């Protein structure tokens, strides 16, 4: 089949780029523990407020050996519980979140935390750090109804 000489080079270059990008990301995952949000199990939305750890939203010593604290958050139309959280600067925090109604999204500004909050699922974000003291905004980033644009909370690192 006819493939132009330059195009063949171009195809090889593209292919190399793809493999290189895939490798770079694997290195970031394996070498630097870059991670994606994962499931920490399922839960019935109706039972959220009476089931541990969501019966006591907020900051607790972590039940996971790799983390200092668990930040437990409930999403509902159209607010987060708790609406204001205080965390120590520099601590290694694990976020656990779930929804009692529709799909929400958790985006913590100026950190790497970004996860969908889906009814029936417990979302887990590992290795969240608040390196500087100050206010970190937490937005809902999935459309969740008529007041979606007012669904925000704050994490205060001090």
């Amino acid at each position, binding site marked *: *089949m006819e493939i132009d000489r330059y195009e063949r080079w171009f195809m090889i270059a593209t292919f190399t780029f793809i493999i290189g990008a895939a490798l770079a990301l694997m290195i970031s995952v394996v070498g630097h523990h870059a991670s994606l949000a994962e499931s920490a199990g399922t839960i019935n*939305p109706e039972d959220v407020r009476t089931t541990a750890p969501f019966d006591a939203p907020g900051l607790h010593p972590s039940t996971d050996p790799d983390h200092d604290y668990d930040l437990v958050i409930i999403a509902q139309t159209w607010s987060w519980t708790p609406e204001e959280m205080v965390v120590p600067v520099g601590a290694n925090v694990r976020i656990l979140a779930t929804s009692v109604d529709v799909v929400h*999204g958790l985006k913590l500004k100026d950190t790497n935390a970004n996860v*969908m909050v889906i009814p029936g*699922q417990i979302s887990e974000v590992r290795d969240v750090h608040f390196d500087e003291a100050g206010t970190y905004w937490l*937005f809902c980033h999935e459309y969740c109804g*008529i007041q979606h644009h007012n669904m*925000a909370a704050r994490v205060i690192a001090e």
Partner: protein
Amino acid sequence: MTATLDPQSSDAADDVRVGPGWEIDIDGVTREDLAPVRRQLWLALVGLALGALMGIAQAADRADINLYDAFQLESYYQGLTLHGVALAFIFTFCFSNAFLSILGMRAYGRPLNRMLANASLYVAWLGVLLAAWAILANKATVMFTFYAPLEATPAFYFGAVFLVISTWIVFLNLVLTHRQWRAEHEHERIPLLGFVSLMTSLMWFLASLGVAIQVLGFMIPWSLGWVDEIDPQFTRILFWFTGHPIVYFWLLPVYISWYLSLPKLVGGRIYSDGLVRMVFIAFVVLIPVGIHHQFTDPGIPFTSKSVSFILTFFIFFPSTVTAFSIFASLEEGGRANGGTGLIGWIRKLPWGNPAVSGQLLAGIGFMLGGASGLINASFTVNNLVHNTAFIPGHFHLTVGTGVALSIMAICYWLVPYLTGRELWGRRIAVTQTWLWLGGVFIFSRGQMMGGIDSMPRRTQASGSNYFDAQGSTWEWANALTAVGGTVMFVSALLFFMVVIGTVANPIAVTGRQEIPIAEVVHGPRRSWAILDDIKIWAAIAVVLTVVVYGEVIWHYGGLNNVSGGFRVW
């Protein structure tokens, strides 16, 4: 290969203005064969118009101006749902229906089955009316992604089903026409134009099965109250199985135009028949990568996400191959027009033809959009931008420009071809194409800078109680979004002015109307015969889908039906 369109045999309403010299380049095609194609195109443009109207309302909202009262809509989100459905489903599906049908006729040199063509049109109309009613009655403010447990009225889901069925009817029509042709040409290569049209249709048929199962198997029974509860995570998996390759379905008709038609318009040729076939095969095989839209979904394990991530990067391959090939065709055309030097040929391209300028500028937007797509596809880097305003910034460059601006450009020859009216307002049309690219650059720049600074997408800026506290980056993001969106809207207005001016043009086209299709330098005889074996590629796509999604579903386990319905808008 010339057919005169006999005015005697046509539908009466259009007769009077048909000039005696209007002929088209497909044997045996009558006005009745063209009518359903033309009407599908009109329906597509109704979708574009609705989308543009909602677009200006969203842009105005960023500047604290409320247009929703004027449009008699209840909310920003009702408008945003209409924007998404009108553009992502109605505009794109109906254009594909029209375009693939006319290309199929041209490729196989005969009309398509007229009954099926009309059936596709009516089913599409039915879908549009049901969905439009549901949305305008504020019974379906669920966005075009309709994630459960937001619960729309059943009419909304039926509307989506009928729109998809209209595309399946076109697929069936192409398959039947192909088989008819094959019976007469047993050992010939499939015409390139027929092959790419068929592959586009086949890809979408396979890809749409996910959303078909989601809607027919879960959403409709649930919204009708036959079952009480639904699994929000699992229905998302089904949605995004289709939700990624739906992008191919938006894009591939435009790829057909860029590969086969644009070279003709600039006086160049298609370099390699085989390469074009390979690119379209790649898109069929790479259907099952939808998990990369769900990198931040909790219910999907790391392994499934990793597999999807690597497969996703391979999509970059057919796209860069396409870029190279099309640049080669353009350069040949530019040099044939007397262009010299490394880039001097670019100036010699026929920029004064809006069908050319629109597609070239769309290509520029698409390249930037494709590059920004690598960020979304990149696993952990995606954490920075997932579901932020960066995403609309990205896809207004790809589908909103690469596709939408190309479709507008294609209309500049397709509308005269289908109506027998001379193009009206060529200069306005050229201006329109430049305005669109300028507008989208401003718009996307704004959305992307906001998104990188965590601004969420699908969020009513004007009503928010936290936007004002986020500082100057968000203010700039909103300002640029408003300005860019307004420029795009003005461009859309000019487009409709030209289309209406053309349809109402008293001047008929003269002579034979041709679908611009370029010649191939290295023709099919040099490409591998196996490329034509559509069944093998379909089988590979199915096997890969079963492997990739089999793993996802196996890991997922049983259904987690926990959610009743919510109407919270």
